[in-house]
């Protein structure tokens, strides 16, 4: 069971309180009705699925209820950072230099 730092509760909580919510930073087009089939496919179906650092969404569904973002290494499953929804992607280089993400 992972231990996940909730940026709203400001502490690590057990995975059982969280729901994974897919890839992060896929903004819903503001002109939704007008996008092309390809753009819709990219928005709704295509995923980065990286082996390595992934930006992803979680919801502290059985905690504070908030959605937030995380950077996690999908090989080690270690979290490098979690941050609030709406905040920009953290700088990967500075995160990886910090080492074990603890």
């Amino acid at each position: 069971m992972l231990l996940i730092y909730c940026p709203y509760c400001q502490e690590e909580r057990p995975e059982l309180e969280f729901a994974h919510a897919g890839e992060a930073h896929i903004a819903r087009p503001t002109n939704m009705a007008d996008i092309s089939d390809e753009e819709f496919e990219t928005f709704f179906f295509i995923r980065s699925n990286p082996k390595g650092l992934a930006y992803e969404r979680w919801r502290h569904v059985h905690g504070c209820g908030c959605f937030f973002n995380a950077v996690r290494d999908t090989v080690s499953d270690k979290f490098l950072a979690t941050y609030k929804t709406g905040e920009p992607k953290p700088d990967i280089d500075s995160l990886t230099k910090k080492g074990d993400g603890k």
Partner: protein
Amino acid sequence: MVETAAMILPHEGNAAGTGVVTITPAAFASRLSIRARAEAVAPLSRALGVKLPDAPKTSAKSRNGKRTALWLGPDEWLVIDEAGADLMAPCAKVKQLHAAVDISHRNVALIVSGKGAEAALKAGCPQNLSLEAFPVGACSRTMLGKVEVVLVRDDAETFRVEHWRSFSDYVFGFLAEAIRDPVI
């Protein structure tokens, strides 16, 4: 004229205990879910007579101790009034942006008390419930077994376990089973 309907709480008759821990149903309380922007917090606190805490995992009590406000999320509080007072009315007067929803009947609670209280909850709650990590007054939405609960630590050996009404049989059944285990 028909007679006024009586309330029937689902935990009626649910009680269990051992030498080190007891499980008892909490009496009816009124409850309010408050969602609010920062500017409404102070006026709402004033209107309700209890401070809506701003630190995660903390709660605050009114002066008479009967009303508790629990931080559940950055813009979410659960207010519990053990005297059963109307909580909607005072909020209605607050003009600042907020949402108040009466959930007095949505939630019910069990009181788990005694030296073995923490151990009983640790049978199904994955959070760190030690006094250091979860001190008196701490509160949190979390999991107990397979259901969501809100835990409040009333004192070192007493927890209030708030949960949705329909999960009563499960929560009581789980705790009653958990306390059979004598290890604390």
